[in-house]
């Protein structure tokens, strides 16, 4: 079989993310990491929860990202890597500085507009790189939870039942 990168699942996918933003490390060097976000024990990362809930809000089928504790998963992931931590601190700090109020206190429309701009931004700059890394990490943690797949033609796990035919 050909393409097998997906097979490497979580750990290597996450390590690829580390590689992808190493080019940014020089621009991240100046960012001090606050006490609540030291490598190995991140307890709080500013507006992370609001950013996650703007990316993956609650709807009639499934809860929001923070309701499924994706914020904690992301913090645990970020805590493993100093460069990643610096990227998150720098980007979230920048997002909070865009207006007179932190990101989490902005109206929904404004939050969406900021994330849309980041989505289109240069991938080699902090806002663009942060958006795409966070989006993919968040999707991975969120959709790993069975509550997130309500409304999908999926069982919580492929076994023990499998998917015997008919399939139409």
């Amino acid at each position, binding site marked *: *079989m050909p393409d*097998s990168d*997906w097979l490497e699942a979580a750990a290597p996918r996450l390590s690829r993310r580390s590689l992808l933003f190493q080019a940014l490390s020089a621009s991240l060097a100046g960012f001090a990491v606050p006490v609540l976000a030291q490598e190995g024990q991140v307890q709080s990362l500013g507006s992370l929860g609001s950013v996650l809930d*703007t990316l993956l809000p609650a709807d009639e089928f499934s809860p929001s990202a923070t309701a499924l504790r994706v914020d904690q998963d992301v913090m645990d992931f970020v805590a493993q890597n100093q460069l990643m931590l610096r990227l998150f601190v720098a980007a979230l700090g920048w997002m909070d500085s865009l207006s007179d109020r932190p990101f989490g206190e902005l109206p929904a429309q404004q939050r969406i507009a900021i994330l849309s701009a980041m989505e289109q931004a240069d*991938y080699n700059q902090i806002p663009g790189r942060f958006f795409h890394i966070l989006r993919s990490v968040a999707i991975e943690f969120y959709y790993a939870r069975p509550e997130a797949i309500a409304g999908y033609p999926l069982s*919580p796990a*492929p076994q023990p039942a499998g998917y015997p035919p008919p399939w139409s």
Partner: protein
Amino acid sequence: MLEAGPGFDPVTDYPLDKTGWERRGFPAKPGSQGQVSYGDLGLFEAENEDLRAWSRGGYPWRAPSGQPRPASVSGYSHVMGVGGSTLHYVGESHRLHPDAFNTFSKTGEGVDWPVGYAALEPYYTLVEKVLGVAGDDGDGARWRSAPYPLPAHPLSPGAQALIAAGKRIGQGWGVNPRAALSAAYDDRTACNYCGQCSRGCPLGDKGSTDVTFLRQALGTGNLQLLSEATVIRLITGPNGRIVQLELHHAGQTHLVETPVVVLAGGAIQTPRLLLLSADPEHPDGLANASGQVGRNFMETLNWVSAGLVSDMRNSHMGLPADAIWWGPGIEAGFRLNHTTLETGLNGPIGYGTRLIAGFGSGFKQAMRAGFGQALAVGGIGRVVPDERSRVTLDPELRDVHGLALPRISSVLTPASLQRLRHMANAARAVLREAGAEIVSESGSASEFSATHVFGTARMGEDPKHSVVNAFGRTHDHPNLWIADASVFPGSGDGESPSLTIMSLALRTADAIHTQ
């Protein structure tokens, strides 16, 4: 039998009944992932922009062209363990096309094999019986002396769409022979279509060698199997015979005497061990009077195009890789298969990180509406090795035993890249005919990623240009045999190799027995 890696228990080691399954690949255990390093992988040239990897739902990062071609995250993808890479293989069970043994005579590319289809056919039949291959008997030129042991599996929604679309554009798609049980067989239960073969089959119905050949061999009481035992050197005696093996097991080094050695470490580790075993009599490594050990390395020439088909339902259900098109002929030298499940589009994370862009409530809705609509086509094609394609010993990097890592250099020739383009265009054509909007592609031009590797101890009649003879015996050492993919003189025309590796190995076993 000495196996460097650990054993895997299908019931406890493949937790596909636990939530969060999509984040887990085939499990890693201590010692189950070999290390390699990479040398020259060629360049990703600007003229191959049309073969660049991209995806709508993934990172917008683009590998710069004109730069060295990187290895992908998985690179040389393999498992070290009892059963080797069949533990995570999908289980496509292909006989080589009869013409693929004569590639040079038929196309002027590569070399001919010293063995042909007719000599291997009885072994193909035997291997299919041991694995429990399910197929449909109309295999065309790949004539058979016996029917498949099991009937073909029902076709998944994705396979049905490709067969119908292929028919309209002259691609004759059909059933792909699979080492997965369509009915209970050999004390093993039937497949329940969980779609996760590459994560390890918890039912044990997939025909990996641990649950088939090795289980049966252990059952005879004649096989002694030692896992986590790494052979680090072969030691020669008079007349070039191998007299001892040096191995590491449980923190100690042991010397074991042996009358016969069958080396089956795969196309990377086999040449490495031969090179590591150099001694004053054999300064360039064992079995290497020809200088061919490690040379002629062939990677997997691969392509995947994936799209969304708005009227498709439940494409995540069924058996992975259940349909195949054997391609337009020997000149083209490739085949396509249905690869939706095997390429990981069987769960929402695959969709969200590759197929569907955006965020917010619109994204969540698009995910729900689009799930089950993915359709992917994969291609694998013939590779003819470039002069630079070879496995050598890394001059600096060492493993835990202090031994040089194998270093892979692999450069795609212009002919291989042209073949890749032909494969990509054929994959795109059938997907579009099936109504797909293509949103993600990847392939060998912009990244090295190899699941099938060959050629580094190739077989041939002439000891000047090959390492083993047609039965797998090394030309230089009367009691050293090789039984893995390193003996392949050619890659075939995209056929998956395990059935041929196993058939050649049984033929080697017969030859040893006769001798």
